Every structure is written in structure tokens, then in C-alpha cells.
């Protein structure tokens, strides 16, 4: 080839196999987007009758007065669960990443992951048959001794099927995901920072405080939000353990408890008909929007972190 002739750009031969294969993979990828869009669209389509229904068709007057207490209950239960789970999850993650002997750390991680493998209906059964009777004495003690705090005011529910029990079960259920993400972030903490801290004479906790926790803070926040997302959408454990009523109430130990959107759907859907089905679907849409927002924010934070954590 002489210098005068510009070399033609190299081009791979277009084979039919290649075209079909890349076409199939692009289609599969786009299908994910289509499915997600379909979830939103079909839920909206089925919710419209409930949103536009005349007040006499919905039990409580309008859809929004119906869904209000449910939204409150959903967020309230999930928030308590997160509050209970977060310190324990951070502790476990630190234990596995920085305290446990290196050789058994991976095995211990599996053990915590096993919790995630337990089906939620089994958690529900366990919550009502084992946990609720087990915590009841301590509820009585709390109500007797701390009852002056409005949160713990009596009279204590006789069955232990209160929102606090639900939050305990939810906390156990979200532990694995929160732990897994915290563990990942803690393991990514820059080795050199840790060694520098230890070399300056820091104790192990001081090292964790100086090098690991500040590095892991965004990861911990998004782990918390992912856990919150899980807790918001958890259905069966709540439906089985809670003795529900549609109210807004902050007390933790009484027998009147606000229920959650998901549990309300699970309990009422099998018998619902007519406009009732649409109302339940519309509450499902509200739940979808809430969890989508929480998850999207959490993932956004994680992904932004990923972009510059490679520099360390």
C-alpha cells in the first residue's frame, strides 16, 4: 500500500450471527425498561377508576383519606425497623470486615446471608408464634416503668401483636441487605489509611473511627435507604403479625396499630371486588412510587460513590 492511498478504515465483516446476537441482547436489555414502564403504566391504568371514584363508592369518602393512614403506618413501621436494625447491622458489618478472624469471616457472612434466604411467610409464622409471646413480658415491664413516655403508654396488647413486634421482625428481615452493603463499603476502606492509623498507635476502634467510618458514611446512608425500601414493601410478616386497624397512632405497645399498605392489600385483596380492587391497586401504586423513589435515591448515592472510590 503506497502512502498516497489513505488506508480504508478496517471494518469487521457483518455476519448474520453477529447481527442476530447483538440484536437479541439489545432487545433483552430494552425489555427490562419496557417491563418497568409496564409496571407503572398498568398500575396507573387500573388505579384511575379509584382516583376518580365518587365519594360514596369508597368506604372512607375519598381515596386519599383511605390511603393516608396506610402511608403513615407503612413509613412508621419501616422507620422503627430501620432504627432498630441500623446499629446492629453496622456492628455486624464491622465485625465481619475488621474484627473477625480473616479465615472464618466469609463463613460468618454466609450465616447472615442465610437470614435473607428465609421466606417471609416463615418469618411471619415465627413472629406470631415465637417472638410475640417472647417479648410480651418485656412490653409489660416497659409499659409499667416507662409508660410516662407517650410512645410506650399502656394498656399493653394482650397478644404482643403490636407495631413494635412487627418492627422487630422487619428489622431482622432487613439486617442481611443492610449488613451486606455496609460490609462491602467497609472492606473498600483504603488499606493505607487503616495501616497509617494503626502505625500512629491508634487502637482498633480509633482506627475504625478515623479511617473506616468516615469513608463508609455515604455507603451506610444508602444501605439504610435500601433497608428502608425493603421494610416499606414487606408484606406477609406484617400481615400475619399485626392486628391491624386503619388509624394514625404513634403508640407502640397497644392493641390498636396502624397497618401498612402492603399488608392491607394482602389481607383484603382475596375478598375485594368491583371498585375495591381498584382502590387496593391504587394503594399499591402509591407504595410503588414511594419505594421506587427511596431505592433510586439510594442507588444514586452508591453509584456516585463508586465513581471515585477507585482512586483510593
Amino acid at each position: 500500500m503506497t502512502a498516497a492511498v489513505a488506508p480504508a478504515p478496517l471494518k469487521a465483516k457483518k455476519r448474520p450471527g453477529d447481527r442476530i446476537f447483538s440484536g437479541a441482547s439489545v432487545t433483552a436489555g430494552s425489555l427490562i425498561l419496557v417491563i418497568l414502564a409496564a409496571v407503572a403504566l398498568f398500575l396507573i391504568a387500573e388505579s384511575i377508576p379509584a382516583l376518580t371514584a365518587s365519594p360514596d363508592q369508597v368506604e372512607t369518602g375519598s381515596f386519599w383519606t383511605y390511603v393516608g393512614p396506610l402511608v403513615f403506618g407503612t413509613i412508621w413501621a419501616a422507620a422503627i425497623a430501620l432504627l432498630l436494625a441500623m446499629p446492629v447491622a453496622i456492628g455486624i458489618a464491622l465485625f465481619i470486615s475488621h474484627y473477625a478472624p480473616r479465615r472464618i469471616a466469609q463463613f460468618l457472612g454466609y450465616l447472615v446471608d442465610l437470614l435473607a434466604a428465609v421466606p417471609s411467610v416463615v418469618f411471619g409464622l415465627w413472629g406470631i408464634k415465637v417472638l410475640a409471646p417472647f417479648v410480651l413480658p418485656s412490653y409489660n415491664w416497659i409499659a409499667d416503668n416507662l409508660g410516662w413516655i407517650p410512645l410506650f403508654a399502656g394498656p399493653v396488647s394482650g397478644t404482643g401483636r403490636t407495631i413494635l413486634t412487627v418492627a422487630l421482625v422487619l428489622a431482622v428481615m432487613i439486617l442481611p441487605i443492610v449488613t451486606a452493603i455496609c460490609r462491602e463499603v467497609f472492606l473498600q476502606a483504603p488499606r493505607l489509611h487503616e495501616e497509617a492509623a494503626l502505625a500512629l498507635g491508634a487502637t482498633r476502634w480509633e482506627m475504625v473511627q478515623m479511617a473506616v467510618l468516615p469513608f463508609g458514611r455515604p455507603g451506610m446512608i444508602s444501605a439504610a435507604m435500601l433497608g428502608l425500601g425493603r421494610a416499606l414493601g414487606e408484606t406477609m410478616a406484617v400481615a400475619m403479625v399485626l392486628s391491624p386497624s386503619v388509624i394514625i397512632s404513634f403508640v407502640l405497645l397497644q392493641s390498636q396499630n396502624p397497618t401498612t399498605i402492603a399488608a392491607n392489600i394482602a389481607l383484603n385483596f382475596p375478598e375485594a371486588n368491583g371498585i375495591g380492587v381498584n382502590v387496593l391497586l391504587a394503594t399499591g401504586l402509591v407504595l410503588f412510587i414511594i419505594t421506587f423513589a427511596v431505592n433510586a435515591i439510594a442507588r444514586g448515592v452508591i453509584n456516585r460513590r463508586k465513581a471515585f472510590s477507585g482512586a483510593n
Partner: protein
Amino acid sequence: MTAVTSAPGLTTGRLPRFSTWGVLGVSWAIAGAVFLLLFIAGSMGEFSMVGTIFFGTALYVVAISTLSSIVEGGRQAKDRLMTALVTSAFVLALLPLVSLLWTTVSSGIGDLSLTFFSSSMRNVVGEGGGALHAITGTLLITGAATVMSVPIGIFTAIYLVEYGRGRLAKAITFLVDVMTGIPSIVAGLFAFAFFALILNQPGIRFGFGGAVALTVLMLPTVVRSCEEMLKLVPNELREASYALGVPKWLTVTKVVLPTSIAGITTGVMLAIARVIGETAPLLIIAGFTQSMNYNLFSERMMTLPVFVYTQYANPGSDPQINLDRAWAGALTLILIVMALNLIARLIARVFAPKLAR
């Protein structure tokens, strides 16, 4: 202890090595003694093992940090306090796991019999009957969900790893992550809304709808794990293949996929294990029944998690019989999930490509 005498002023005292376990043992013994006294005095119905461990551990946390702050100084004391707290956080998380597994096994094992696996609940009042219809339904629905989600999932992963550049790939990665957080009940509602509108049957219940709901839940997990596995395949393998003139699609099917097949299998099995226990979506769209149903496309179909739930929620005249059946179903479910998890991890370990030589 000798270090203290050799360089006074530079180092502080250290607690002896055995102090951690020693203090823990003493704390437990003290708490146990207190509870034993309470038991003997008659103010408690039975000797509380849980109370002993709990208060013993709490006592340990206080004791070790006090001891340490006297002998070793404030900083070491804080370190020991946090070590104790972090470790007990881990143990605390294992308690529900152990309690749950123990309860399920001990309450479920009694009702696991041949009848349980060989008969349905049709025309069963009171004792007898089994979960055959539920097990069949679970296998059919989960199988259909797997058949639908695995090809889409693998192709999406191939797209993300081998082809995806630019905005579409970024959007898919992000949305797959978000999709893992979709509440399972929303997936069930989606399947219901979809088929109720498409087939124009407002009260629709059938097995295939459950499979679609499970597919929505399974897809993101399959995509994520396959993506991770495909990324692990070293680029040298791909380049060697290209250098031999092999087209891209053959490189993927003959080089990349076989290398990562063990990991992909593991990922798929873990995804199955995740959705096989889903209750809420199946309660919504597959409904519940007492009879066998082999047809995914018509009539209600029972599944194992829903079986457990309905046995608990709709008790007959003697609730204990139903509760026993619920526990037996729960045990079966846990056994299936654990088996899937175990096999998946074994496959990952045994068939992992030996890259380092």
C-alpha cells in the same frame, strides 16, 4: 506485665490475654447464679437461659470496660467496649436465625409424613391431607418464571458487559438496581392489572400470572449476578479468540459463557431460592385452592408459601391441626431454599474456572 516494669511511663498496664474469656465466663456465672436464686426463691417460673446470657453479656460489657479503664486507661477501655459491642451485635443477629430454624424444625418435623407429600387438601376436614398440590404449584410457577427470566436475564447481562455503551446501558444498570427493590406485592399487583386488562377478566386468578410476577422479581437478580460473572472473565480470553478471527457472537457463546457457566448457574439458583418463598404476589394473582391443578393457564393454583399462609390464616375447628400443617409447609419451604443455596454454593466452588495456574 514485664513490659510495665522495664519501661515505666512509656507503656501502660495490659490485661492478661485470658481476661476477655475469663470476664465473660464470670459474668455469665454471676447472671446465672442470680437467675438460679430467683428460680429457687420462686419468683420466676423457670430458669431463664436467655436472661442469663443476655444479662451476663451486658454485665461483661460493663465489667471489661471498667477493668480495662482501671488497668489500661481510657482509650483501651473504649476499644474493648466497642469490640464487645460489635461482637455481641453479631451474636444478636444469629439469635433470631437459630430460634427460627429451631422452631421450624421442631414444630414441622412431626407432620412431615408420606401423606403430606402425596395428597392434596381436597375434601380434607380436620386431620390428614397434604401439600402435594402446593408443591406442584410452586414447582410449576417457579419453573415457568425461571424459563422466562433466565434467557432475558443472561442476554441483558451479555448486552451490559459485551455490547452496552452509553446512555442505554447506564439506564439499564441503574433501573436493574432499582428493580431489585420493587416490593413483591407490587409485582403481584402488576401481573394482576396486566392480565385483568389484557384478558378483560376483572377477577382473574391463574398460575401463569404468578410466574410473570415472579419473573419481574427474579430478573434483576439474574441480571446482576450474570453481569458480575461475565465481568470476571479475563479480557485476554476474548482477545485471544478475536485474534484467531472468531466472530464476536461465537466468542461470547463459545468462550465467555462456558468460562462463566458455573457462576451463572449459581446466580440463577440463588435467584430461584429468592423467589420460591414469595407469598404476597402469588396470593394476589395465583390465588389459593385445595385441589391439584397442573394447568398454568387456567384456574387458581396453590403454592407452598400461600399454603403455609392459608393454613395459618383460615384455621378449621381445631386450629392446632392447621398450624401443624403450616409449620410442616414452612419446614419443606426452608429445606428447599436451603438446598438450593447449598447446591448453588457447591457448584460455584467445584466448577469455578481455575484461572490461576
